[in-house]
């Protein structure tokens, strides 16, 4: 992802200054805030899909204190952090890109002196500024209301590693959204592809439950896919469940997946542009 951004920055050949990006962020922020109801609805949606799971697991725990190394507080914290990740490190840009391609709005962006992907990255990042603010407020409310159920990392290093893993998670999530969105170059309608990737993500990222709760075959498959680095890996870091070796290995895999997906996206974009018909020209 970082390479992808740098590549795009280089394509700007130094003409694009930081002030331009700042202006871009401000413009997108204003645009997002003019549809505040949409932002709130997305925030509710990001949280709602996991809201029931802590209650289900607390019911499963009953009198048990620990399941597969997860205490009752761990499992509740696990889902709260998933909600936090949903708001701060999950991208939602695929539908915007699909519409740009299908309705021909991409034409306008291609004639601008900035690469299209830069526009869309700042579109998403500015949106994340708003949802991250919502996430922080909700996090504080939950922490103050239920301190016994929201564990905080003991050390500053854990916080730092957690935030680094969030950056990686966001980069992977964003590239997946680009893959779905660019699918519109060939398929037009991408809802089936979107549904498929979301399903894989739900199962193999650890959204339903910590991956350690799954049968070993699912855990083995999850280890081969990038989805666990979107949710499970950052939450495991937050909960301090990983040793130094596992953290290093996790970050290495996260970087490898980021690079591989970014290259794939770059290839998709180049090939897609060749088959783009430019509706409306």
């Amino acid at each position, binding site marked *: 992802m970082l390479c992808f951004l740098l590549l795009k920055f280089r394509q700007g050949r130094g003409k694009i200054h930081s002030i331009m990006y700042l202006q871009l962020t401000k413009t997108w922020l204003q645009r997002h805030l003019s549809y505040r109801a949409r932002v709130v609805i997305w925030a509710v949606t990001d949280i709602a899909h996991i*809201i*029931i799971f802590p*209650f289900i697991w607390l*019911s499963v725990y009953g009198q048990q204190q620990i399941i597969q190394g997860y205490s009752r507080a761990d499992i509740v914290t696990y889902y709260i952090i998933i909600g936090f990740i949903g708001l701060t490190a999950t991208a939602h840009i695929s539908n915007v890109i699909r519409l740009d391609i299908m309705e021909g709005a991409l034409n306008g962006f291609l004639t601008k002196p900035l690469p299209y992907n830069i526009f869309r990255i700042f579109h998403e990042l500015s949106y994340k500024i708003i949802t991250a603010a919502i996430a922080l407020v909700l996090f504080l409310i939950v922490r103050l209301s239920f301190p016994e159920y929201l564990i905080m990392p003991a050390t500053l290093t854990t916080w730092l590693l957690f935030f680094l893993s969030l950056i990686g998670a966001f980069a992977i999530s964003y590239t997946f959204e680009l893959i779905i969105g660019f699918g519109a170059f060939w398929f037009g309608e991408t809802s*089936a592809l979107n549904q498929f990737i979301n399903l894989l993500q739900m*199962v193999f990222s650890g959204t339903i439950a910590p991956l350690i709760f799954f049968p070993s075959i699912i855990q083995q498959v999850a280890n081969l896919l990038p989805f666990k680095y979107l949710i499970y890996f950052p939450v495991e870091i937050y909960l301090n469940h990983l040793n130094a070796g596992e953290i290093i290995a996790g970050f290495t895999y996260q970087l490898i997946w980021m690079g591989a997906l970014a290259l794939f996206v770059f290839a998709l974009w180049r090939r897609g542009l060749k088959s783009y018909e430019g509706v409306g020209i």
Partner: protein
Amino acid sequence: MNKYFKIYKIFMANSFSYEAQYRGDTWIKMFFNIIWLASMFLTVEVVFRHTSALAGWDKGEIYLMTLFWILADELAMMIFGANLPQLPDTITDGKLDIYLTKPMSALFAISTKIFLVRSLYRFIMEIIILAAVIWKFDFAFNLLYVFFSILLGLAGIFVLYSFTLMLNTLAFWLHRIDNVNVAISVLTSLGKYPVEVLPRTMRILAFTAIPIAFTAYIPVAALTGRSSWHGILYALVFAGLFFWGAVKFWNFALKRYSSASS
């Protein structure tokens, strides 16, 4: 009434003809639906790897609840699921005029214009899975309970319709809230779990303002003999009142429509 039957027949004929043009897409979506069903069942399996009962419901009953929710969701998708989600954009873009100038109820046309044929195919497949689950877990149901369960299931569809209509109607004030349908889908999907796991406040919400208990929990509670007669009565009366309230709210909101295009 006869007029509306005729109109609905035409809507259905159009939908079947539309679907026939995209048969490949239908099969792809059917394939994804099977994977989606598998992920639902995987969730149940993962939970029951660590317990033998969830809030007093055994594994077979949770499978039943999941399937009832899937069937209700599929029926809703078939009848109005491709229509009501278009409402926010229709209102914001001023396209509601087309419906308002037609010699029939605008709400009827907006709610039923597209009959989602692929949902019908999926519904049939899901009924077969339900039969398999009933056979596998060796359920034996009382006929009266089956009757109440089906009745309550239909009432649940009315509740789901009313909830979807109410939230989409907010577009008259909030505009561009098409994503509210994703939120509805996410919220109602919580209805496939027993409400007993929820804390008291959320349980009250599930039976009132965010009525997630009506599509699966209440019908399955009736089917498994857990419902009292006043619980059944409450669900039926609530469904009627909620539907009435949703239509009233729609009529009230319609007066605000300023038609962006004309």
